[in-house]
């Protein structure tokens, strides 16, 4: 038997329930039906092999699936950790996750929701780490990604290690509900508040379509203004490179040019010498 599923929370939960019932079944996933069909052509032994498809469900049906998988206590997780549905979503977005193994892990929790959080097993620890890495990566984007502001559009170009560009785009859209927001990753553009441009509220387009929408640039002097502001917050005798580097680790420089400049100052401090000092010698 083959159980097929999509990399979405509802489908993964459904697949975990199936695998509890048929533990020896093979697992196969694809991002859409066409991909699954194509993979099945390679994997299926013959036409008699049974295929069970774990369809995705809408978000209000997820609690029901969680209840089946983890019993009534599924929402009793620690306040300090992120909720289990979010946990699962984060793991699914991790670039190294083996989805089939994750489905088996969920089924192997035997209804114990704590197994996701308490890191007692090697696998539990791995998925917990994945969840933390994805949330960290998302938070880093929210913190250090910068935008280019145009009259009719806000654009941010990013390249995160996990599949979180859509999440970041929605977050930027909520922050700026009065403007369309485009988040570009390689040749894909995610759009939030797309109705202002005649698209859906949240949409995915080829990046080239956004290029044509860029109007005259409006924020050229802004980076200099930020640099000036940043320097005003420095208290010279309190420089603490160790703490500052811990708070803004080196990898954040790769997120945006402005973050890279801030990070440079974290490392080197702020120079007191200005061009004016030079000319007035």
């Amino acid at each position, binding site marked *: 038997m083959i159980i097929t599923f999509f990399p979405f929370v509802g489908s993964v939960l459904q697949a975990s329930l199936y695998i509890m019932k048929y533990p020896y079944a093979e697992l196969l996933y694809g991002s859409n039906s066409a991909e699954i069909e194509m993979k099945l052509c390679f994997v299926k032994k013959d036409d008699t092999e049974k295929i069970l498809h774990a369809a995705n469900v809408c978000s209000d049906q997820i609690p029901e699936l969680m209840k089946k998988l983890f019993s009534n206590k599924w929402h009793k997780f620690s306040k300090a950790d992120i909720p289990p549905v979010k946990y699962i979503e984060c793991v699914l977005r991790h670039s190294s996750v083996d989805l089939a193994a994750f489905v088996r892990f969920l089924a192997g929790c035997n209804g114990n929701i704590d197994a996701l959080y308490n890191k007692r097993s090697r696998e539990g620890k791995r998925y917990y780490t994945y969840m933390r890495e994805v949330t960290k990566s998302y938070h880093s984007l929210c913190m250090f990604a910068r935008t280019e502001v145009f009259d009719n559009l806000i654009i941010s170009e990013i390249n995160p290690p996990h599949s979180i560009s859509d999440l970041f785009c929605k977050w930027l859209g909520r*922050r700026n509900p009065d403007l369309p927001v485009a988040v570009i990753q390689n040749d894909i553009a995610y759009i939030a508040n797309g109705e202002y441009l005649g698209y859906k509220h949240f949409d995915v387009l080829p990046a080239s379509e956004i290029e044509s929408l860029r109007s005259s640039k409006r924020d050229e002097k802004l980076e200099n203004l930020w640099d000036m502001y940043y320097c005003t917050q420095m208290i010279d005798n309190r420089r603490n490179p160790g703490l500052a580097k811990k708070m803004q680790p080196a990898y954040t420089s790769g997120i945006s040019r402005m973050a890279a400049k801030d990070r440079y100052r974290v490392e080197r401090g702020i120079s007191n010498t200005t061009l004016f000092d030079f000319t007035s010698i």
Partner: protein
Amino acid sequence: MKYLSSGTKYDSCNQSAICHAFGPDGRCIQLYKTLLTNYCSGECTYCPNRCERDVTRVSLSPDEITKITWSFYRKNAIEGLFLSSGVIGEPEITSQKQLEVATLLRQQGFKGYIHLRLMPGTPKYILDQIAEVANKFGVNAETTNKSNYSEICPNFDYQNDVLQRLHWTDRIIRKKRKEFRGTNRLVGANDTQFVVGAVNEPDSEIVNTVSEFMKKYSLRRPYFMSFDPVPDTPLSENRPSPLWREQRLYQVSYLLKEYGIKADDFDVVYDEHGFLSNSDPKLELAKANRDMFPVDINSASFSDLIRVPGIGPISADRILRSRPLFEEKELTRMGVVVGRARPFICINGKSQASLSDFLEACS
């Protein structure tokens, strides 16, 4: 902009969740912090903006402040605005101007965070109006009692201009929290800031005041700023307060708030003058209460677990949910700093180091 933002660099105000940059001193930058003006009729003895001091005086108009705030916000470089000010004639006029800026931003559709640091003596009707537009607002207490306050802020009255305002702010916040329950409007908790070391108040006095404010005015988080002498002020010859003092006070305030430890419990860790030493107050507290340890990981209550150095509320919660535990490795996975916790814990009756061994090693 440069002058007025520099004027706020000693103000701590971070509250919302996302930091967008960190200064070279490690402090988070998440708001555009500025003074409305550095003109001031006040004579606070530690302040660079006191009226008698010879400094370049400048102001920003509400339009200019809103424009900068919007630009940084759109750029995703800040979460909002922190606005303080020198006193322009009367506290009432100054607060009205601060209110004007916040109102203008909201009228323009600004959804970010607005924190106003108000003047001592701001009238109640303005506090009410400010609560409509700002997420957070408050008055700085600066020190622990009336006589200390009149020594450093001679133009204001501690009881009336500070404590009364803290009380009103608390009442307004409670009302607003009820009003905005279920919406996504953020209503920040009461906050205040202390200048540590400008007068000679001992740490014990600061800790007791913080604890009292937590009870009386629902203070959630005090801010501490170490005194740093400013040239041409009456305190210019005083010694700066050591930076670690500020850090230790933050740790104690965290223990008061998040661990439910009482202010009196710290009496055993102060020196004879009432000052904290430069070491982790939780460790000092544990060392002073040897009879409470070791606690058994598999049977101790939550409140006993969080008293152990190296175990915080999150790891204590994980321990409770993962019992029974058999070895230290499992504790490490739960976020316990085992090296610190080891002398204070045992697992199923077995401990790997006795507390006295540890104390000897420390001494």
